[in-house]
């Protein structure tokens, strides 16, 4: 294991984050505040409670998930795509490192960044509503696993993408709709039966449900199922990356 290399990639990626720390943090914080104003204050005043929780508090886990998923994906995809785009990837390809080390470096940095942003969102939301966390350890575990798995997904997208449009495509076309339709801002039990069934096909639904359970002790689906779903998703990403590593797909000529 080339630990120095992992460290170098991680530090380099994190320095990119800290260099633009204000930008990196300000936009998620502002958009979270907007969500609270729109969903919490405007709409929430007409829906007093969801599953025994005030609507404002109810949307906190969904908001954190929404941000963490999009941030982890975009950070990781950009992290590996950018060197390909400007050509500095030659250095990584000619270094005495393997794909596992490259993945740990880039995915690790993206996961830590998004974790950081997720925690910032959580802190921001306490300014608007009372947030209580029923199972803090489970909450951290769900958050970490989500950061990690979506950073893995982003890494795959970054390797696959041949241009900036493709880089934006999957987050825009797949992740955002899945997150919005996965019950970020409502409980799926509020949906008609047919749409409840459809929601069961949405993997993100399981993550949000499990994450919300760690806050309020209630879930749309059993928490064990949520755990299996996120573990399955992480394994799928790992398998894909292993396959990329085996075939040298899209990185080496």
């Amino acid at each position, binding site marked *: 294991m080339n630990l*120095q290399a992992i460290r170098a990639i991680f530090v*380099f990626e994190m320095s990119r984050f800290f260099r633009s720390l204000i930008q990196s943090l300000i936009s998620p914080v502002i958009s979270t505040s907007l969500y609270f104003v729109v969903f919490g204050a405007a709409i929430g005043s007409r829906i007093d409670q969801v599953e025994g929780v005030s609507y404002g508090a109810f949307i906190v886990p969904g908001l954190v998930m929404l941000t963490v998923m999009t941030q982890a994906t975009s950070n990781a995809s950009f992290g590996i795509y950018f060197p390909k785009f400007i*050509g*500095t990837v*030659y*250095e990584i*390809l000619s270094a005495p*490192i393997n794909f596992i080390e490259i993945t740990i470096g880039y995915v690790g940095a993206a996961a830590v960044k998004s974790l950081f942003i997720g925690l910032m969102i959580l802190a921001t939301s306490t300014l608007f509503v009372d947030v209580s966390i029923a199972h803090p350890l489970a909450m951290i575990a769900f958050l970490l696993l989500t950061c990690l798995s979506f950073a893995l997904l982003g890494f795959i997208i970054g390797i696959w993408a041949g241009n900036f449009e493709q880089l934006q495509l999957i987050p825009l076309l797949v992740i955002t709709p899945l997150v919005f339709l996965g019950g970020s801002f409502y409980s799926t039990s509020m949906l008609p039966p047919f749409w409840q069934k459809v929601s069961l096909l949405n993997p993100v639904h399981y993550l949000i449900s499990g994450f919300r359970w760690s806050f309020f002790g209630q879930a749309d689906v059993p928490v064990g199922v949520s755990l299996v779903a996120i573990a399955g998703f992480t394994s799928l990403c790992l398998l894909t990356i292993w396959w990329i590593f085996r075939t040298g797909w899209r990185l*080496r*000529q």
Partner: protein
Amino acid sequence: MPPIVKVSGLRKQYDSGFEALKGVDLEIEEGEIIALLGPNGAGKTTLISAICGIAVPTSGTITVGGHDAIRDYRAARELIGLVPQEINLEPFERVQNTVRFSRGVFGKSPNEAYIQDILAQLSLGDKARARVRELSGGMKRRVLIAKALSHEPRILFLDEPTAGVDVELRKDMWEVVRKLKENGVTIILTTHYIEEAEAIADRIAVINNGEILLVQDKDELMRQMGRKQLRIDLAESIGQVPESLAEFALTLSDDGRSLTYEYDTRADRTGITTLLAKMQDTGLKLADLQTKQSSLEEIFVGLVKETA
């Protein structure tokens, strides 16, 4: 001593189907400077990329320091530093950060003193904290060299290190390369400038269309280049070279109207004066004189044309 880099039967076919290397064999000796000369698209960068692990060979083997470049890639790549042809640098990054990064990904523990020393040697000491986009093109090229040297490699690949670099800086770079050689670093450089190969290389390899045409000691080549031909056109044709001129090993043209004399410009006496004096004694009338030099450039162009 076994060669530090050994390439045998190397073929590279790109995904497009284009065969950029068609069975290259090359042995690079430890401590030498070898120049790869060849026209655009000859396969120089492809060859370097294959050795450094950026391009996957279609077939053939590569060993670096005795380690197979594929099976034993860690040991092989640790020995290599690469300065790419293109200036690939992150514009917003600070110079010293990108150099530190390079050292790290090659598995070396941080050594700030060494990094600052490398930067100073490349006259970048005062630019260590500058951002890459604030540098001139020549400075960026030197940052690439600093990155390649950051992990103390034993073999350095320089892919057209002096393209677009002014004469002054080019000489500075040659100086850097010579110093590296003194420290025992093996250097492989590609170039389009024949004078550059002449100035610093120990050996010269000519490559074209994915094939190595010639690998030769530079001094050997220079000796060939130092040979000059003197053509003497005669006023009247003769049947054979007169006996009295036998010592000059002249060749007579088919029409019997011109004689060719080969001599070495670097010899103490070229023999031209004596030859002309003797010709006069023999009563031969001269119509014209011409001299012709075979330069490295000519050898190079000739070789490349032959295989085109």
